[in-house]
């Protein structure tokens, strides 16, 4: 897979340790009416890294990734994705950036009125340089990657929860994103399907060298996919580390997630 479209901006961005950075967030604030959700969050996602975000419901995990793709506008802070300041981008440039960022929604968000084939081809429609037969090949390749080529002509209503997640993942991968954002990818799935989805996330990273932020409450999933884990509390990062480090943390609140 060719990720050359995103290589240039990433190469311009390094953190203090010289590591290439895909996303850099500092002092991010977001409130809804009187409820303060994000309260000065700082986060760095390195290139090719799988970052798992843990935290109780309502701590701002989903808000965080929606801010990254510009679905929610934060009140304060800076948010740099692939070298572009998201908060300063106009619609056209923001849409260009969004094509480099894949987003797997909690419900997979498949378009009900379209078949699986049409769902996958939909993100390609704005790219007039891709011919119809090339689109078809890309759709088949993406479905093959998630093992669902047989479901190409099915409607979303005919798919199980796990299949919907896989199709959702295939749809985001079709644009060959440099960054993947997963919003509770194993939510509502049985342990076996959860494990399959988790392995798929690892495969995506290895095959396409994507940088990913994964929001989950599923510790088994986190163990499989995480290079690094951060724990959110009250809209800020409580702690961060590898799975083993946090599992053996001195902080009982952190350890509670792993018990």
């Amino acid at each position: 897979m060719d990720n050359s479209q995103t290589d240039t901006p990433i190469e311009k961005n390094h953190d203090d340790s010289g590591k290439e950075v895909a996303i850099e967030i500092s002092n991010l604030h977001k409130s809804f009416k009187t409820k303060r959700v994000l309260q000065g969050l700082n986060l760095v996602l390195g290139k090719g890294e799988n970052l798992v975000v843990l935290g109780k419901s309502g701590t701002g995990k989903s808000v965080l990734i929606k801010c990254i793709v510009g679905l929610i506008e934060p009140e304060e802070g800076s948010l740099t994705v692939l070298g572009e300041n998201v908060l300063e981008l106009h619609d056209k440039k923001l849409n260009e950036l969004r094509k480099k960022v894949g987003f797997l929604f909690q419900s997979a968000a498949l378009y009900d009125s379209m078949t699986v084939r049409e769902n996958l081809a939909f993100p390609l429609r704005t790219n007039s340089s891709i011919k119809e037969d090339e689109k078809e090949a890309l759709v088949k390749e993406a479905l093959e990657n998630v093992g669902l080529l047989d479901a190409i002509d099915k409607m979303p209503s005919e798919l199980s929860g796990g299949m919907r997640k896989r199709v959702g993942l295939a749809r985001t991968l079709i644009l060959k994103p440099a960054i993947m954002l997963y919003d509770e990818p194993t939510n509502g799935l049985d342990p076996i399907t959860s494990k399959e989805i988790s392995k798929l996330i690892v495969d995506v990273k290895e095959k396409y060298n994507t940088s990913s932020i994964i929001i989950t409450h599923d510790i088994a999933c986190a163990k499989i996919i995480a290079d690094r884990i951060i724990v959110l509390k009250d809209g800020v990062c409580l702690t961060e580390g590898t799975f083993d480090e946090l599992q053996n943390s001195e902080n009982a609140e952190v350890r509670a997630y792993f018990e």
Partner: protein
Amino acid sequence: MNKFDVSSKKENEIEDEASGPWFPLMFTFFSEITLLTRFTVQYFRNLFIPPYEINEILKQCYLIGYKSLPLVGITGFIMGLVLTIQSRPTLSAFGAESWLPAMVAVSIIREIGPVITALICAGKVGSGIGAELASMRVTEQIDAMEVSGINPFKYIVVTRIFACTMMLPVLVVFSDVIALLGSFLAVNINGDVTSTLYFSQVIESLDFSDVFPSFIKTFFFGFAIGLIGCYKGYNTDKGTEGVGLSANSAVVLSSLLIFIMDMIAVQITDLLF
């Protein structure tokens, strides 16, 4: 103290009065008007900017227009039949039974056909659009379009409003024709009138000022149905409860808007013709 003298009242007392029971209602009303105006401006801005979603427009025309034909046809047929049967005794009492085709034709073409068809479509199409878009919002399908770099407003909203605007006049013409056929059948229940005589009387009774204004206003009715359905659905909140609320308020508001627009159209027609 003079109750109209506010100078001696404390500031917070004035604020309390300003935030009386009517204040939230007025605030909601004016903020809805502002948001609806902004939504309308956004529609026209997106309508003329390429790329044009021709395939989706044609699909929506099929769903809104073709799929509504049976309902609109049956309603129109009953409308013409009932209007004729109900009008006959009154006209007979004045010895003006021969005016029946003309009276029915003018009533249907000028007023009853467009308004009843628009109300039927507000119920069928408006609620459908409201519920569909609200459901898409709740299940994050609209967000999914947005994050894949596609303008959901252009793809979902513009196509539906445009298809509604274009299809309602077609449905009204179809309904008018079926209503006249129903009327012809009703005339023949108690008499024997040939179709040639009946329809020549109908055509003779109609002139430009009957047909043209009523045809033009149907575009506005269609626009109102599409706009309100999309506005309510696209801006829904409150989760699944919001889906039902959006469908319901789309029907109520678009029906109200149809009557208001009709009233304005009648005044303008009276002034111009």
